[in-house]
């Protein structure tokens, strides 16, 4: 094991939340401009996060801080693993565990809003997990490699062969980052039926931990997106376009219901991904 290699994941663990926070700040600024407002400064999410760490720690029970920490750890570990160029299948299991801790943290409290949010979070996982695994399978099909480092070195524009898959991945991103129309488990906008759902019962530093974990997840998903055009300028363009698309979709739709998601998205989404995969194989 080459110790020098550890610099890369260490740098990624530090850089990823900065990146994720910046994305959140840009998102809030552009959304505000789209809505005809001036909007907060780009660094607003960092002020929010730092302030949250300075609030009184009020935990509902002993498990809640633990699950929040595990969620943060899981998300950070996933980023580190991907930066290390690790196996994509292991990454898949890591992300599943990460979401599991979020759901556990939300269901260990008595609040019905939090529990309902946890249930919806699980349903969301049910929708996007199959797509993620199909995305990884397609990457393997195209490059013959399971490890991210190999995929990156292979280079090339995966996007050219996998437009449908990328569309599915984009929808996964919409779901994962809780953008409209799929923002029903823990929307950043307050006025909704579940009062932030999964995050209802978190407060102060624990909420900050979950928020930080969310930034790691944002960075992770965008890193996966970057694999589809593995060259530095290419992936930069791809990620920027994806983020812009996310912001527009968020502002173009109202929130729909999870019933609608299960009826209209659950099967078609992996179906579309599978179609692309079959096309790659033949």
């Amino acid at each position: 094991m080459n110790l020098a290699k550890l610099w890369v994941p260490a740098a990624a663990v530090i850089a990823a939340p900065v990146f994720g926070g910046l994305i959140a700040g840009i998102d809030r600024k552009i959304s505000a401009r789209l809505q005809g407002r001036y909007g907060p400064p780009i660094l607003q999410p960092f002020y929010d996060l730092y302030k949250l760490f300075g609030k009184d720690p009020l935990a509902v029970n002993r498990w809640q801080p633990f699950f929040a920490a595990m969620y943060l750890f899981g998300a950070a570990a996933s980023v580190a693993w991907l930066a290390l160029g690790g196996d994509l299948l292991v990454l898949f299991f890591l992300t599943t565990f990460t979401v599991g801790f979020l759901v556990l943290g939300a269901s260990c409290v008595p609040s019905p809003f939090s529990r309902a949010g946890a249930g919806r979070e699980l349903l969301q996982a049910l929708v996007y997990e199959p797509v993620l695994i199909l995305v990884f399978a397609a990457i393997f099909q195209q490059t013959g490699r399971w490890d991210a480092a190999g995929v990156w070195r292979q280079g090339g524009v995966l996007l050219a062969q996998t437009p449908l898959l990328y569309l599915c991945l984009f929808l996964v991103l919409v779901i994962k980052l809780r953008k409209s129309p799929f923002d029903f488990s823990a929307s950043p906008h307050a006025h909704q039926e579940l009062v932030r759902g999964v995050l209802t019962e978190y407060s102060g530093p624990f909420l900050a931990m979950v928020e930080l974990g969310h930034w790691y997840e944002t960075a992770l998903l965008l890193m996966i997106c970057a694999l589809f055009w593995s060259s530095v300028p290419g992936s930069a363009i791809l990620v920027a376009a994806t983020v812009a698309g996310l912001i527009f979709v968020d502002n173009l739709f109202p929130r729909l219901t999870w019933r609608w998601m299960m009826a209209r998205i659950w099967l078609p989404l992996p179906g579309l991904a599978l179609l692309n995969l079959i096309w790659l194989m033949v």
Partner: protein
Amino acid sequence: MGMMKHLMVRSRRRSLWMMHFCLGGCNGCSIEIMAALTPMYDLERFGILNTGNPKHTDVLLVGGSVNHRNRRTLKNLIDQIPAPRLIVAVGTCALTGGIFNEAYNIIGGANRVVDVDVYVPGCPPKPEAVIDGILSGLDKFEQ
């Protein structure tokens, strides 16, 4: 250490998550607070975000006068807000009970139940006054 503290004060001043709770009033203050969130006034440019969840709240805007039933609700809400917190009474009713002070179900202003930091007078106060009220309370975070 000094720098961390300085940064914390700065963050607290820049990032206020607010919640408004309307008590026994006419609702006029409530809609002016809503108006303060929207494009013309845009509270978010000061980092003020409407949360609607006491556990995420830094600043509570109280509108309307306290009556016998909502007294306990208000107290419960305040207890759920983690310190440091800012409590702003918006509108004449929240200040003194206002025009309804003599009504049989009214106890009085918000200060009968909680310790109010900033009073914003007006019936209802204009959104500018609400914004000014919140921002003038920020010095509380200096300590």
